[in-house]
């Protein structure tokens, strides 16, 4: 190396490096999110909800399945006792503590939401990844199937899939809801993979003779994940709502003893809305708040990851 050149160049590069040094892409996004009130609201709701779900058995004041006040309920005469000491939200038509059921119901909601989203992401990413990586007829075939799936309104698709199973259970709900996400994720990943395929750094990697498998897995896929992650957070919210909707419509787990927000809302709405309307409000509010939390988090994540918003 030319020594004269070395001397000239070092301070320049060092100076430039010092100003450019700092944060990884993820760290940068996190820092930006912590400054946004929307992100903090969404994050706090989400964290509280997750903690509630995890520690539900400890937090619930009473057993959600025991019919404590069964003898005080008389559905024939339209009597359900309201809130009273020990039962802050009252009891349902079987005399079970509503608050405890609501708390334990968070578990079910989280499980269904997360699993349905996860299955949707994985299946969608496999389809979209294959389409984006191979192109050609593989792409055409996969994307036509995806188009057909997208053509159905999401709830109709979920209802049809749920109705296909002879014996509904929480797993049929998860599967039905996950199928809503599949075409969305497939399309999203394929789109950004295609953009990556014509990008300069993939061309550069190709010019270095990097194997095709590494180009797809190491160069194209990680660069395409951003939108998928954001969409996954948003899909969590819709999954929770869709799952509740299926239960509400009676396509969920038929076991009435199971505490599940959609089912609780459905029961309240169908059976005793006139007697105790507040028993319909509680699960409805819970569903809305949690879905809102995930949506706010997702939206702010999208903003934080968007390079155009980088400051």
């Amino acid at each position: 190396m030319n020594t004269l050149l070395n001397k000239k160049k070092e301070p320049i590069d060092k100076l430039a490096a010092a100003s450019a040094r700092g944060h990884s892409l993820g760290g940068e996004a996190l820092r930006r999110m912590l400054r946004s009130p929307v992100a903090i609201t969404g994050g706090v709701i989400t964290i509280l909800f997750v903690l509630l779900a995890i520690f539900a058995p400890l937090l619930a004041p009473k057993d959600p399945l025991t019919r404590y006040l069964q003898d005080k309920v008389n559905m024939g005469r339209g009597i359900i006792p309201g809130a009273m000491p020990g039962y802050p939200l009252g009891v349902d038509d079987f005399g079970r503590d509503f608050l405890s059921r609501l708390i334990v119901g968070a578990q079910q909601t989280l499980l269904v939401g997360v699993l349905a989203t996860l299955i949707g992401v994985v299946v969608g990413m496999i389809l979209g990844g294959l389409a984006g990586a191979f192109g050609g007829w593989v792409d055409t075939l996969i994307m036509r199937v995806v188009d057909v799936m997208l053509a159905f309104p999401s709830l109709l698709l979920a209802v049809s899939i749920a109705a296909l199973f002879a014996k509904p259970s929480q797993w049929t709900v998860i599967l039905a809801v996950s199928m809503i996400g599949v075409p969305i994720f497939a399309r999203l990943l394929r789109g950004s993979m295609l953009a990556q395929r014509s990008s300069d750094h993939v061309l550069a990697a190709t010019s270095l003779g990097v194997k095709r498998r590494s180009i797809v897995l190491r160069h194209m896929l990680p660069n395409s994940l951003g939108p998928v992650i954001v969409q996954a957070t948003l899909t969590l919210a819709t999954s929770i709502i869709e799952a509740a909707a299926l239960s509400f419509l009676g396509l969920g787990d038929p076991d009435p003893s199971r505490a599940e927000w959609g089912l609780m809302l459905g029961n309240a709405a169908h059976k005793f809305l006139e007697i105790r309307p507040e028993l319909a409000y509680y699960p409805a509010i819970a569903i809305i708040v949690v879905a809102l939390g995930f949506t706010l988090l997702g939206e702010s994540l999208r903003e934080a990851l968007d390079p155009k918003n980088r400051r």
Partner: protein
Amino acid sequence: MALLEVRDLKVVFQRRGEQPFTAVDEISFDVEPGQTVGLVGESGCGKSVTSLAIMRLLAKRGNKVSGSVSFEGTDLLTLPDKEMRDRRGRDLGMVFQDPLSSLNPVIPIGLQITEVLERHRDMPRKKAAIEAVELLDKVGIPDPSRRLSEYPHQLSGGMRQRALIAIALACRPRLLIADEPTTALDVTIQAQILALLRELVQDTGTALIMITHDLGVVAGLCDEVNVLYGGRIVERAQRHQLFAEPRHPYTHGLLASIPRLDAGRGEKLVPIKGSVADNIPWAGGCAFAPRCPNALEVCRESSPQLVPDNGGLLRCHNPVRPAVAAGGGAR
């Protein structure tokens, strides 16, 4: 036999329902080991397409590549895809124009170097990391071991281009194609990168194809210069010959349009009139004729051939006479 012999390389873009467009039209040139050959011309003259065709990086669909590119006797254009992939990076390296977008933004620099070493030289990860530090050091990146774990966006523009050169040189290719490596950099960094390339060529005997629109780069680096216009070579000369006596009116125009320090105050720049859009097809005449100050009747009627001239090659019916060009722009 030269290291690389490009013969009658022709690239035609074919789109369904559109007229085929000949981007590169029967270009032939040789590159010897340790030699630097320049491909010069304005945007759209076929420089980059030539380099991508040599590397076989053009999409198969819609592009028809013909002619031959023989590297040490093997025709790269007819090689099976798998063998071509083995050669890319190992025998032929490439440095691109924009160093930021040419580096993978989500992978640390180090991994992008070791990836190539593992691929072509079968090095275990740890050994490759040591080699990567040496490579970064060789291209003049300070504190190389720390840089390994840094991401492209954490490096300055100059360092990114150095890193890109380090990656391209990782497997000691015998031919390096630099496609406008300095265009995205500011002038001081440009000079450093050019000095680095010059040094690498001298030290390792790597052959270099330098693609640029910047005649300053040509003057500083190239042994032989090919001036491209409309997909064809219009003039080839040794560097000093080209600057001292440009023969083609296009070359002359390029040199005349460079701003000069010794020009008088208020003296206007001399541009080449018109734009590439004015070109007429080579088949019926000289593509440059509509913009050419020396154009004659014959220029629009018959296509000039590339003929030996003054030790180089020239494609012109009415070349610039040496006396006119005297002092026409050594920079």
